[in-house]
């Protein structure tokens, strides 16, 4: 009995430390300490579990823990910051797989030992494996798209939504039937199989630029699966941690969807980047003005106020270090440089902030969309690097555009706009960006990193 109390105490302390850890993330300068507390909580919970009387042998546990540590260390220390989205997607897969396997093991044990499974426990187990299995394959596809071994464009076919709905209907039917007849094991395993298919089909049609929403949703699902594990096992720390993860993923999903002016269902069933007849204005008859690195250097070198708008293209070109170097030169000449971060810039929530922080950009120079949007009017130059749709004024002005209504950064309000871009290809939605054709916009074509390197050399020479 006293051991049981010890276990419960560690779980309670762990729950509190997890909440404190997440709360510390509201303040960047306290976050590290807070997360160390959360890690301590995790350690306590593990020790509290290992002393349980149900555990009779430690050999295989040690093997599992050792293998996990060997896999986890490189995932923590070696993965570069640019690969963060695929690395997180990969972890969602691991988390969901763990929850699913525990659910299957629990179900199998109850059946073989002849324990009656109550309807409530069966509901929790079924929910756990359903969401768990779906998240395993869904995250795997997201991982594949982000790591670019699966096509990043939406994979669509006719009748897709019909097939998905049919699969979901069968899975839900099995779910309900299992609650009534928990011993129907074939149905249980069929449901797990269907869930893996649903996860696959759910994420395959989603394009690369919609990944922030998918990542957030998978985060939420993995959390809910963990919470369901807690219900099935009667374990409160699992319920609490799962609820925290679920809430976090849910909040991020809402933030991301809002930033794209789209609903969840539109992201999941819309396949945005696919063929979509629009009446959006085209660029016919408009011309762009090009600028040389020398002229760009002249303008940037003496600008009093510059706002940098980074996008996924910056991450692809690995240009963040050059941006920071250029910013330091501008600041040395007496100018001010700020960074405007759109919520869905990049492939996961907060991606740009991490990349810029890694390049040594102080975080007080990074501004959210709401904070900085009114400041573009005072800026001498908006420097757009690898961003496109998030600065497209059509979102404000053209009701025929597919992105109409999406909140954008008001880069077009700056006195001058310089756009670093590889070529004139449109963004992921295939939408022309009229910002590029405006008289106060200059295009600096080429690889962003190479262009910036030349601009930096010119500013230094001036």
């Amino acid at each position, binding site marked *: 009995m006293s051991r049981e109390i010890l276990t419960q105490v560690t*779980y309670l302390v762990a729950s509190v430390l*997890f*909440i404190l850890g*997440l709360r510390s*993330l*509201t303040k*960047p300068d306290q*976050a*590290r300490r807070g997360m*160390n507390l*959360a890690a301590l909580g*995790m350690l306590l919970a593990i020790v509290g*579990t290992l002393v349980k009387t149900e*555990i*009779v042998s430690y050999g*295989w*546990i040690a093997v*599992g*823990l050792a*293998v996990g*540590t060997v*896999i*986890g260390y490189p995932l*923590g*220390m070696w*993965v570069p910051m640019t690969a*963060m989205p695929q690395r*997180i997607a990969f972890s969602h897969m691991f*988390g969901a797989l*763990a929850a699913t*396997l*525990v659910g299957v*093991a629990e179900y*199998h*044990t109850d059946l*073989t030992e002849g324990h009656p499974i109550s309807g409530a426990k069966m509901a929790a187990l079924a929910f756990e494996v359903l969401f768990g299995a779906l998240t395993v394959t869904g995250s795997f596809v997201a991982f594949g798209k982000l790591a670019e071994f699966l096509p990043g464009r939406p994979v669509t076919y006719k009748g897709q939504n019909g097939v998905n709905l049919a699969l979901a209907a069968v899975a839900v039917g099995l779910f309900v039937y299992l609650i009534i007849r928990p011993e129907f094991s074939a149905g249980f395993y069929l449901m797990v199989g269907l869930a893996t298919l649903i996860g696959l089909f759910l994420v395959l049609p989603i394009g690369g630029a919609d990944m922030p929403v998918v*990542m957030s949703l998978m*985060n939420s699902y*993995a*959390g809910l699966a963990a919470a369901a*594990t*807690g219900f099935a096992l009667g374990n*409160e*720390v*699992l*319920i609490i*941690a*799962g*609820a925290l*993860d*679920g809430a*976090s993923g849910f909040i991020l999903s809402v933030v991301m969807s809002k930033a794209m002016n789209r609903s969840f269902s539109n992201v999941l069933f819309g396949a945005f980047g696919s063929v979509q007849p629009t009446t959006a204005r085209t660029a016919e008859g408009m011309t762009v003005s090009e600028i040389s690195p020398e002229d760009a250097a002249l303008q940037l070198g003496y600008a009093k106020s510059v706002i940098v708008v980074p996008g996924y293209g910056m991450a692809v070109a690995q240009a963040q270090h050059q941006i920071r170097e250029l910013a330091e030169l501008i600041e040395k000449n007496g100018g001010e440089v700020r960074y405007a*971060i759109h919520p869905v810039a990049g492939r996961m929530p*907060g991606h740009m*902030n*991490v990349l810029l*922080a*890694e390049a040594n950009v*102080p*975080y007080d120079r990074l501004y959210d969309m709401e904070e900085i949007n009114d400041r573009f009017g005072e800026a001498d130059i908006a420097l757009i690097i690898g961003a496109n749709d998030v600065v497209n004024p059509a979102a404000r002005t053209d009701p025929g555009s597919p992105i109409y209504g999406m909140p954008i950064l008001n880069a077009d309000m700056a006195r001058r706009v310089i756009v670093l871009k590889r070529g004139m290809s449109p963004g992921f939605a295939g939408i022309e960006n009229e910002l590029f054709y405006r008289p106060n916009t200059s295009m600096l074509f080429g690889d962003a990193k190479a262009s910036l390197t030349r601009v930096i050399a010119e500013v230094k020479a001036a």
Partner: protein
Amino acid sequence: MDIVDVYVFVLAGFVGYQVISRVPALLHTPLMAATNAISGISLVGSLVAAGSGRNTVATVLGVIAVACAMANVVGGFLITDRMLRMFRRTGTTNK
């Protein structure tokens, strides 16, 4: 399953919502990495499945689950710390 667990879930979800909605967009990637690490708490379930020696299936699935969850714990906390270490204010240096 106990009805008290439903209370725990709802209240924890509420606390989570209140706390996490105040996390700035600046730290959304570390937040996701942190929740990933915390999701490794499913260890408390998988350790029991792996170590209670009730049947081979449970042991095998449990050991795989322990490895997966432990990878998230170790990798998740390490990478969260690595990211948070990089965030610095103007005029301070990191490292």
